[in-house]
Structure formats: structure tokens, C-alpha cells
């Protein structure tokens, strides 16, 4: 071989080696990113795989038209028929099979949601999502939610019906997991590169704990401590009072046909107590919780549930009517899952469940309907504890003797299983402790007491009358709810149901209590007879809207403090008083009624103040222009309204200016803000020192603050939206935001126009992330008729038609007809059907 040929051969060989090395490196890289996740990017191979990867989510968007499966543990076949709205109607022969099927069916549509909610309570989100959720996990474990739920579950005897049914539900979820194919894995798991975890029965109680966190967490004591340091105890008592200054209670006062204005003169603010403020602000920081803020919202009007029932004598058709309208954080998938459960002769109930819970907390059966609003009672107390070591305590002082503290070691893991952090949570006999401002506080909360809410709610699902419902719910512990019921016999009833602690006479529930004395502990719970309640009142209707349940004139017992303003109650009571022939359609219309009772209290005063200032020549032109516009306003927060924005901005200004004393010396402190009822109370005292804005040399009065608030609001709105015109339309400003549970863009729905405003029956505030979570109306005729909707859809798959198909009716304030067949065969042309059979 000559030299040239040898060189050519070597060159060829070298180029071949280069090709191998280069392509090998490319292959290694491609395989690596295919097999391993990089940062938040999932492993690309299984993710992009068009056969079984993320694209399969499209193929499984809808359920199979017909399916038949065998399920372990079933004793008889179960027929599941989905109606045209995607609601499963489950027909079983016994309750255990029914619950197995329910677990299966809910997991089929909402698996990821079930796991995410469970993990949020267990404090294990970091294992699924990563270190970004570590603080949320720490908060959940410090609250003791899963700890308490596990205690409850372990205390329920194996022989109890609730134990059997919850276990059956869990079996159903796991049966779904067992038969699930790769294609069925929900999108969120694929994006996170995770796989679904097995379901455990105790997770049902985790979800109940989450509801308690949303509805009965109350850290008024901590916030109040800061407030007292700022304005003194007397003023704090008046700003966050035990009794609302406007009384429109849930338990009707016989003979009263209008709200009672009970307020007085607000005591002036005391000078700041700088020494106390340091500790108090640490308490306030301890009370700040992103989780609770997300669940409940931050503004006064963010969450506001409503319910009302009309007795036959005031209904057009002579049948009792019931309206349910619980408001909660809005998410996709929705918090609720609609279902119809039937075992002949045992249960025949339609309503909404929380995915993960085998009960229908709100719904109806052939005999009655029920719904709830939150009572908001004070069922959580803080105790200042004395410990032996401030940093690493082992004992706490009780009645002069040292008692050992229980310790709970909490380990947090990340997605790879690596331990991210370890916390030690201490417990006294009252509950978990927290450390704030160098002070150890323990917490007693009804949500952590041993109880079985599941049993009461399950029995309630099967109740046949208002009386039976109230009897079985007597054992319900919490979160305390204003349960409203109506039956086909024509009865209506309401009761604020839940365990309310009996405190020693010297202990105030809204103050931090001395923990060194066992005499300061709770002494028991109220008897059921003492709960706020009413049945078949002479007025012919009942309503609740989170307001103070009983007028203190009737019963001065302490139930809580700082009650939500009763504007919604005032409005619905006014509507129901005025309507003596209520129809189901009127009930529906009231749910999104655009009028606010609050406006009627503030707007005339605002306009009068501007008129007086203009007459005296001291009003600025913006306030005069604003007043001219608001005089044209019909007071309705409708989508096409172009004046509501100005009123809303003026009220925000008024609130900000009036309560400037609560912002502390730095003027940036984010303390609590008194409710609008307190502001209404203050309106009756035009020269109160509270009107004075400390940052100005002048001494302001009510009228001057009203005028400046309106003028500033006009300027702000004009700067943001231009001169008065179409851009001031309420539909472009007050919108709802429904985020996906992981807040993934594209999976949520935003800028949904709302017919809601300050104090309307469907309130919304801030980012609009809270609102009506399930609106329904039931007519208790011999053949019960019902209508309903919720902001979302039945499926958790974001590309399914059933993911958000109800949003259209929800935003329009309309309701869909709910199908309530007596037999599977009565459901014409089911959209999907599933038959579950026992294993051979």
C-alpha cells in the first residue's frame, strides 16, 4: 500500500472514529435527558412519548363510553351511569359496595387533587413538588392537622360504621390505582415526574382537617395583642367587638322585622405602647399564614357563604325551598365533585362531595335538603405557657408543678427523598405549641379533639326529615356550621352546629390565656339546646350569611368576636321579607343579586358630605365630579355598570384613611382592619378622633375624610382607566380568578366578570380568587326538584370538556337542572357508563 493510500485510510478511520464519538456523545446526551429529570424539567423520554407519555392525556380526556371491571372486595355488582353533565349516579346493593364504587369513581376523575390536598395536610408537599413548598409543609405540621386527624382515625373502633365505610372508600380508590394504565396518569404527575401514591383511609380525616383549617382556624388572640399595643384595650374591644354593632342574627328574634343597630361611640385610640408592640408584632407575624390567606382570602368580603330556606306559606308553589351557596377558595379542579348515591331503602342522596371524602356534606335526598354556611365561632384558644428552657423546653408549668412536654419530631423530605429539614414540635395537654416573640404559646382547637364528624355527616345524608337531621347532627363537632334544612313535609330549620367550648368565667376566648393554671382550661362544651337555632319561624324563612348567630339581647354567651359584617344577611332578609310568593327562579336570582346593603349605609353620607363641602366652597373638583357620577349610580354591582368602580375605590380610600392609627409608627404595618360595620358605627360620630389622619397637621372630621376619599378615588380611577366611560365597566374590573391547584398558567381561568361587590350576596375582593363554590336550589315537592352549578367541572383532566364546562352557567348566575333518577334505567342516554362486578 502506498503512502497516499495509507494516509487516506488513516484519515477515513479517524473520521469514522470522530463520527462515532460525536454521535455517541449526542446519543448519550439524548438518552440522559430522556431518562433523567433536569431541574424542574421531567425526563423527556417518558414525558414526550406519544404512545404513553403526556400526549396520552388527550386520549384519556373523556371516560370510556362503556366500561366493565371487576373489583376486589365488592359483594355485588354496582352500576354507575354518568348523566349529560358528567355526574355519576351510583346504584349499589349495599353501602359498603357504594363507598367502594364512590372511591373508584372520584379517583377516576380527581386523583391528583386528592393526593395534593392530602399532602397539604400531611405536610409532605415537598416530596411531590420540591423544596419550594417546605414552608407550607412546616406550617401544616406545626398546626398539627395530620397529627390530629390520625388520632381521630385511630380512636374510631374497627366495628364502627364510619370506619367500615371510610375503609371501603379507600379500597375503591386503591382499586382504581391498581387497574390504572400508564395512559391514565393525570397530567400533573407527568409534569412533576411523579407517580400516584396509594390511598389510606385516614386521608379522609386529613381532608376534614383541611376543612377545619379553612373554616374554624381562629388566631384573633394573636392579632388582637398587636392591636391592643397600638390603640389600647378599650379601643381594641370596640374595633373587634364580641358583639356585632348591627344585629341581623341567624336565629330570628320574634317580632323583629329589621336589623337592630346596637353600636355606640368608639373609645378614642390610646397612645402606642412601644414595649408591648415588639412582642405583639411577633405574635402577628406568627399569625400570618400564606396557606390560610390562600384558603380564606385576606379581605373582609373575600369569602361569604349564604343559605336560606323558605317555608311553604311564602313559596309560590306551597313547597319548601332551600338555597345553598357556600363560598370558598376557587380552584380548578373545583373543590366539589357532584354525585348521586343510591342503595335502595338505605340511601338515595344527591349532592357534592370533597374528593377524598365518602360523604355528601351538602345536598338533598328524596325527603329533605341541607346546606351550610360557616359559623366562624371561636373554637381555638391560645395559652401563654411557662417552660423550663426557652430554647429547648422539656417541661411546662401547670398548677405549680412541672409537667413533661410531648415532643413530635417532624422530618421533611424533598422529591429525591433527601431530608430537607427536621423540626421539633412540642405539645402541652392542650395541643401543639408555637414560639413567637420569645414566648411559648400552646393552642387548643376543637379540630384536634378526638371526634368522628364522618359518622354524623353520613347519618345526615340519610335523614328523612328536618328533625332527624338535627338529631343525628347533634354529635357533629366541627368545623361549626350553620346547617340549614328543609323537608318535603314543609318544615324548615337551622342550627349553628358544632362543639363550642365552655370557658371559665375569667377567661376570654379572644385573649391569650394564662397557661399555668388548669382552672383556665375549657370546662366542656355547650349542650345542643344552647346552640343558635330555629325551626319553622313565624316569619316563614330562615337565612344565614356568616353573621353573629344570636342577638346578644337574647343570649349574651360568648361564641366568638369580630363577626363578618351582616350586609349580606340584611340584603337577603330584605328580599325574603318583601317576597311572599318565592319561586325557585327567584331563589336563583337572589344568589347573584347585585345590590349591597352596605352601599345604602355609606353612599348617602358620602354624597351629603360632598354637597356640604361644595356649598362651603371647600370641596375639591375631583370629589365634586365623583359625587356627580355616584348620584347617577343605581347602587348595583352589575357587569355593565360604570359607577361601581368609583364607589369601590372610595370605600377602599375611606377604610385606609380612617384606620391609619392601626398602621403603627412606620405606617407600613399590616395589622388587621376593622370590618365595615365598625366603620358604619363610626359614621354616627362625625367628630370622633378616629377620623383624624395622623400624617396631616389638620384635624379631620368624618365629612372631610369622606370628601377626600371620594376625590382621591376619582383621581385614582381616572388615572387607571381614563375618563368615565366604557373602561370603567365593572366587568373589566371585578373579575374572578380560578387558579389551578398548582397555579400552573393555562390550567386556571382568569378575568371572569363577576356580579359582585362590597356586601353583595356574592361578594368578592382582592384577586377574586374566592367566591361561590356550589350554588344550588331545591324545591321540596313530593318529587324533589333541584338546580345547581359550580365553578369548574367534574373532570380533573385540563383538556377534558368536563374540566370547566360549568363556568358558563356559574358566571351567568344560571343553574343547571340536576337529574335525580330513581333507577339506573330512568337516566336517558347516559354519557358514560361503568359496571363494577365482584371478583370471581
Amino acid at each position, binding site marked *: 500500500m502506498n503512502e497516499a493510500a495509507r494516509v487516506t485510510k488513516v484519515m477515513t*478511520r479517524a473520521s*469514522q*472514529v470522530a*463520527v*462515532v464519538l*460525536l*454521535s*455517541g456523545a*449526542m*446519543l448519550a446526551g*439524548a*438518552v440522559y435527558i*430522556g*431518562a433523567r429529570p433536569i431541574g424542574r424539567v421531567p425526563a*423527556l*423520554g*417518558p414525558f*414526550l*412519548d*406519544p*404512545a*404513553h*407519555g*403526556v*400526549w*396520552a*392525556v*388527550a*386520549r*384519556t*380526556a*373523556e371516560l370510556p363510553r362503556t366500561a366493565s371491571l371487576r373489583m376486589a372486595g365488592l359483594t355485588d355488582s354496582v352500576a354507575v351511569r354518568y348523566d349529560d353533565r358528567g355526574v355519576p349516579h351510583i346504584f349499589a346493593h349495599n353501602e359498603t359496595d357504594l363507598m367502594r364504587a364512590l372511591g373508584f369513581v372520584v379517583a377516576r376523575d380527581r386523583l391528583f387533587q386528592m393526593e395534593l390536598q392530602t399532602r397539604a395536610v400531611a405536610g409532605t408537599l415537598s416530596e411531590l413538588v420540591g423544596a419550594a413548598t417546605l414552608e407550607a409543609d412546616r406550617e401544616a405540621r406545626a398546626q398539627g392537622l395530620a397529627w390530629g386527624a390520625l388520632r381521630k382515625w385511630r380512636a374510631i373502633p374497627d366495628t364502627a360504621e364510619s370506619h367500615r365505610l371510610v375503609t371501603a372508600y379507600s379500597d375503591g380508590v386503591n382499586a382504581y390505582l391498581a387497574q390504572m394504565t400508564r395512559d391514565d396518569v393525570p397530567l400533573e404527575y407527568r*409534569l412533576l415526574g411523579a407517580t400516584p401514591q396509594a390511598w389510606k383511609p385516614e386521608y379522609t380525616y386529613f381532608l376534614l382537617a383541611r376543612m377545619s383549617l379553612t373554616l374554624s382556624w381562629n388566631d384573633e388572640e394573636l392579632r388582637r395583642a398587636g392591636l391592643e399595643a397600638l390603640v389600647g384595650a378599650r379601643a381594641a374591644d370596640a374595633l373587634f367587638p364580641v358583639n356585632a354593632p348591627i344585629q341581623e342574627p341567624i336565629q330570628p328574634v320574634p317580632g323583629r322585622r329589621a336589623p337592630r343597630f346596637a353600636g355606640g361611640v368608639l373609645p378614642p385610640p390610646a397612645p402606642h405602647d412601644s414595649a408591648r408592640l415588639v412582642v405583639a408584632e411577633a405574635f402577628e407575624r406568627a399569625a400570618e399564614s400564606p396557606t390560610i390567606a390562600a384558603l380564606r382570602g385576606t379581605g373582609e368580603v373575600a369569602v361569604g357563604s349564604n343559605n336560606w330556606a323558605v317555608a311553604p306559606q311564602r313559596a309560590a308553589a306551597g313547597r319548601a325551598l332551600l338555597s345553598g351557596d357556600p363560598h370558598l377558595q376557587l380552584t380548578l379542579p373545583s373543590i366539589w365533585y357532584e354525585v348521586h348515591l343510591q342503595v335502595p331503602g338505605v340511601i338515595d342522596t344527591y349532592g357534592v362531595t370533597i374528593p377524598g371524602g365518602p360523604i355528601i356534606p351538602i345536598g338533598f335526598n328524596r325527603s329533605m335538603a341541607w346546606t351550610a354556611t360557616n359559623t366562624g365561632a371561636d373554637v381555638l384558644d391560645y395559652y401563654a405557657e411557662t417552660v423550663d428552657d426557652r430554647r429547648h423546653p422539656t417541661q411546662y408549668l401547670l398548677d405549680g408543678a412541672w409537667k413533661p412536654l410531648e415532643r413530635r419530631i417532624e422530618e421533611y423530605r424533598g422529591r429525591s427523598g433527601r431530608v430537607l429539614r427536621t423540626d421539633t414540635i412540642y405539645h402541652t395537654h392542650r395541643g401543639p405549641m408555637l414560639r413567637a416573640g420569645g414566648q411559648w404559646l400552646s393552642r387548643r382547637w376543637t379540630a384536634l379533639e378526638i371526634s368522628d364528624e364522618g359518622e354524623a355527616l353520613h347519618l345526615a345524608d340519610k335523614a328523612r326529615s328536618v328533625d332527624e337531621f338535627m338529631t343525628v347532627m347533634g354529635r357533629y363537632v366541627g368545623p361549626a356550621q350553620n346547617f340549614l334544612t328543609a323537608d318535603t313535609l314543609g318544615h324548615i330549620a337551622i342550627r349553628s352546629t358544632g362543639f363550642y367550648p365552655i370557658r371559665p368565667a375569667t377567661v376570654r376566648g379572644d385573649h391569650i390565656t394564662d397557661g399555668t393554671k388548669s382552672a383556665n382550661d375549657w370546662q366542656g362544651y355547650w349542650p345542643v339546646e344552647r346552640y343558635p337555632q330555629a325551626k319553622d319561624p313565624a316569619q316563614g324563612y330562615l337565612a344565614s350569611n356568616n353573621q353573629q348567630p344570636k342577638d346578644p339581647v337574647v343570649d349574651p354567651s360568648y361564641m366568638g368576636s369580630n363577626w363578618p359584617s351582616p350586609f349580606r344577611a340584611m340584603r337577603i332578609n330584605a328580599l325574603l321579607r318583601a317576597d311572599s310568593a318565592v319561586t325557585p327562579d327567584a331563589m336563583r336570582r337572589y344568589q347573584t343579586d347585585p345590590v349591597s346593603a352596605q352601599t345604602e349605609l355609606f353612599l348617602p353620607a358620602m354624597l351629603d358630605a360632598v354637597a356640604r363641602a361644595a356649598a362651603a366652597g371647600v370641596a375639591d373638583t375631583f370629589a365634586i365630579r365623583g359625587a356627580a357620577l355616584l348620584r347617577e349610580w343605581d347602587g348595583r354591582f352589575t357587569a355593565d355598570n360604570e359607577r361601581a368602580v368609583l364607589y369601590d375605590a372610595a370605600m377602599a380610600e375611606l377604610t385606609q384613611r380612617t384606620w391609619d392609627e392601626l398602621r403603627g409608627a412606620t405606617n407600613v404595618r399590616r395589622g388587621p382592619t376593622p370590618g365595615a360595620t365598625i366603620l358604619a358605627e363610626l359614621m354616627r360620630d362625625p367628630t370622633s378622633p378616629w377620623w383624624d389622619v395622623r400624617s396631616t397637621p389638620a384635624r379631620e372630621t368624618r365629612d372631610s375624610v369622606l370628601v377626600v376619599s371620594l376625590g382621591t378615588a376619582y383621581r385614582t380611577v381616572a388615572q387607571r382607566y381614563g375618563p368615565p366611560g366604557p373602561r370603567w365597566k365593572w366587568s373589566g374590573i371585578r373579575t374572578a380568578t380560578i387558579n389551578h391547584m398548582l397555579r*400552573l*398558567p*393555562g*390550567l386556571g381561568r382568569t378575568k371572569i366578570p363577576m356580579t359582585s361587590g362590597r356586601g353583595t350576596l356574592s361578594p368578592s375582593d382582592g384577586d377574586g380568587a374566592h367566591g361561590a363554590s356550589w350554588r344550588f336550589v331545591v324545591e321540596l315537592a313530593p318529587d324533589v326538584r333541584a338546580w345547581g352549578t359550580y365553578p369548574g367541572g367534574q373532570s380533573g383532566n*385540563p*383538556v377534558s370538556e368536563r374540566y370547566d364546562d360549568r363556568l358558563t352557567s356559574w358566571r351567568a348566575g344560571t343553574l343547571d337542572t340536576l337529574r335525580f333518577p330513581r333507577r339506573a334505567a330512568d337516566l336517558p342516554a347516559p354519557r358514560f357508563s361503568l359496571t363494577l362486578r365482584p371478583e370471581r
Partner: protein
Amino acid sequence: MKWLLYLAGLTLVIAAGTWWGGWWTVPVAAALFGAWRAHARDATLTAMLAAACAWGGLLLYDASRGPVGRLTHLFGAIFHMSDATLLILTVAYAALLAAAAAACARGLRRLVTPA
């Protein structure tokens, strides 16, 4: 014509492999093809096109069975990119896997058994 047959055959093999085995069958099938057709100049190109066609075909199948369009729109929003990007990335990823595997295997084969 023969090339088209090779292309069609490999496309079917990769599609079936992905369906029954998983994504990793793409480089395996392409490597085997590259080694087998080591002395054909267009083996790498054939493997690349076959993989793209196989995964593109599977995507078409997905689209015939569900709302792939809605899904691409969703991905656009989640990943802050244009709607079609993930579709293109899917096909491109299969093509890259196949091309790299085929080229590597072909090169190795040619090193071991020179023409």
C-alpha cells in the same frame, strides 16, 4: 423505492416499539438499523426520518382520539412558548434519538468491519 421500503419498515418498527415498549425502543431500533445498514450512506437519515414519522404518526393517532390541539395550547401556556413547540420538540426528540443512535451504531460497525 427500496429506500422507501426501509423507511416504512423502520417507521412501523419504531411506532410499534414505542407503543409496546416505550421511548427507549427508538434508539435501540435505530441503532440496530444503523448497524445493519452500516454501508448505506443514507442509513442515519432513514432512521431519523423513520423516527420522526413514527412519533408523528402516533401523535396523529392521539389527535384522532382526543383533544391534542387543546393540549398543545395548554403546553404553550404552561411553558411560555408557542403552542406548536412541544409538538415539534416531540418529533425532533425522536429524530435526534434515532439519528444519533443510527450514526453511532453505523460508525462502530464500519470501524469493526470496514468495507
